[in-house]
């Protein structure tokens, strides 16, 4: 086909995309000019544009601390756990939901598992407190005393908290993440399943040989997007749920909470912008790498 004819065929598509691209440009790309703040020492008297450039000075505080390794390790490790565990559980629940026959029962389950997502993280921190408070929390008060076990001072013992935080995160998000997988599974062509049954597959084989492979594009896409955010963390989860407790900080401090704690008095827009820039760049590089690897394996599944 001639090149011009080929492009012509696609004009309706380009037209369709224009409003959305325009919005992206306005909402996301124009403000990106603000990234220069990370490299400036902003003085509002002369304005942002005229403020002096300071190179990488604003980034120093992220690395000039003994905590630099801890916060990086925590951020990445938690996110890795969230991605892997979160995906596995969300898919498992989606498949389970799909198996359930009774419509009403299915709907009830779906509604209930979405509940944790609707509760704000601050309220979740109070619920966690209701369980873990030293003298009035459920676990110490009812559970342990029933078994004659000594109460644990939860908010002072760091060892438990990786598990607690991962549990809380999954609890809050699995119902929401599950919806995407569920909608995808529901949309599969029934023909594939029929073919599998004719070939004599049992339930388990159907799942592993039909459902999962067909879910792969979705899984890969979502995972790649999560990798892009791997240096970010949910502030509420890591600051508020542990009630900002000092002794826990070695396992609950992430890049975001460190920046918040450090800058709360300084209120330096250049430094906080630098922190955000740093997080973005790392995520970007990682996603590019991951995407490259994925496209080597299977071109269709790559993000771009």
């Amino acid at each position, binding site marked *: 086909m001639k090149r011009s004819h080929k492009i012509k065929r*696609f004009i309706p598509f380009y037209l369709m995309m224009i409003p959305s691209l325009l919005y992206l440009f306005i909402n996301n790309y*124009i403000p990106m000019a603000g990234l220069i703040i990370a490299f400036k020492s902003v003085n509002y008297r002369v304005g942002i544009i005229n403020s002096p450039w300071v190179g990488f000075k604003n980034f120093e505080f992220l690395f000039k601390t003994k905590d630099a390794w801890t916060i990086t390790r925590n951020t990445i490790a938690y996110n890795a756990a969230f991605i892997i565990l979160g995906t596995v559980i969300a898919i498992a629940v989606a498949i389970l939901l799909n198996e*359930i026959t009774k419509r009403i029962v299915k709907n009830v389950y779906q509604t209930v598992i979405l509940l944790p997502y*609707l509760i704000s993280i601050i*309220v979740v921190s109070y*619920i966690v407190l209701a369980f873990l408070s030293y003298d009035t929390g459920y676990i110490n008060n009812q559970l342990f005393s029933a078994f004659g076990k000594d109460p644990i001072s939860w908010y002072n013992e760091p060892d438990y908290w990786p598990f607690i935080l991962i549990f809380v995160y999954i609890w809050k998000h699995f119902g929401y993440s599950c919806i995407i997988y569920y909608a995808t599974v529901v949309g599969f062509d029934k023909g594939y399943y029929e073919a599998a049954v004719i070939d004599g597959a049992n*339930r388990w084989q159907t799942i592993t040989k039909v459902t999962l492979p067909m879910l792969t594009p979705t899984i890969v896409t979502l995972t790649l997007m999560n990798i892009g955010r791997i240096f970010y963390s949910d502030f509420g989860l890591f600051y508020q749920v542990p009630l900002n407790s000092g002794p826990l900080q070695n396992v609950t401090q992430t890049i975001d909470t460190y920046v918040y704690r450090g800058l709360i008095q300084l209120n330096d827009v250049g430094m906080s912008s630098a922190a955000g820039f740093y997080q973005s760049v790392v995520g970007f590089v990682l996603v590019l790498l991951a995407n490259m690897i994925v496209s080597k394996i299977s071109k*269709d599944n790559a993000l771009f």
Partner: protein
Amino acid sequence: MFRHNKGFQVAANIIMILLSLICILPFVLLISASLTEESTLLRYGYSFWPTQVNLDAYRFLLRDSSTITRGYLITIFVTVVGTLSNMVLTVLLAYPLSRPDLPGRNAFSFIVFFTMLFNGGLVPSYIMWTQYFNIKNTIWALIVPYLMLNAFYVIMMRTYFTTNIPNEIIEAARIDSAGELRILVTVVLPMSLPMIATLGLMVGLLYWNNWTNGLYFLTDTKLFSIQNILNRMLRDAQFIASGMAGEQAAELAASLPTTGIRMAVAVLGALPIMIIYPFFQKYFVKGITIGAVKG
């Protein structure tokens, strides 16, 4: 569906029941705490059943029913308008990107995805929206910034279109000389109902739960969404109870159930969604089967 293994059914149900319990119990705890007297909460902690139902928290929040009503109305309006706009923009962007032969497809996908990674921060956005678009203290402040299009959902829809809409169907429609937009609306969308419903739900939640737009762009309290109003009331309660509000609030300070109010705020924010969601769920069933292709 077709033949079901009985054992599998039972197992699936048991697991789902357990998961549901884990999810709903804390919510019960929440409701119970919102109905409990403050001193009881502080002394004895939380329990699943309030020893004595006490409506003070709700009384404080709902005393100004006109404000709450207005908050809900604004939020509903913002959510409906915002969600519909977002869904239109998302689909219009995701569908072309899902066409494997679209020239520049990868470049555009990259442009979309890039917005998920980098952002210039609050200050430049704020300057742009308030100085150039003048949306401060207008209803549009709650609808337009940040929320009207989100790269995550675009890519999610694109993946769904790629996975679940076979090219043959599109080709068949083209042969019948239908325009691309027509194909999208009459063929693709009905087949994508589950994902469209998902998109609607997620974006709807995004709008409903959003309180930051109001925080940044509104000082006119008449435009506050229900989340902003509830947050503000919680702040006020904490302020008064701390004794900082002076003699003027003396009588109130001692009696405000701040912990109960926190919980009540959460309940009032989440309850409308819980009521509407079940009606939404019928869309999570696939629409038209793809009999046409095979037949």
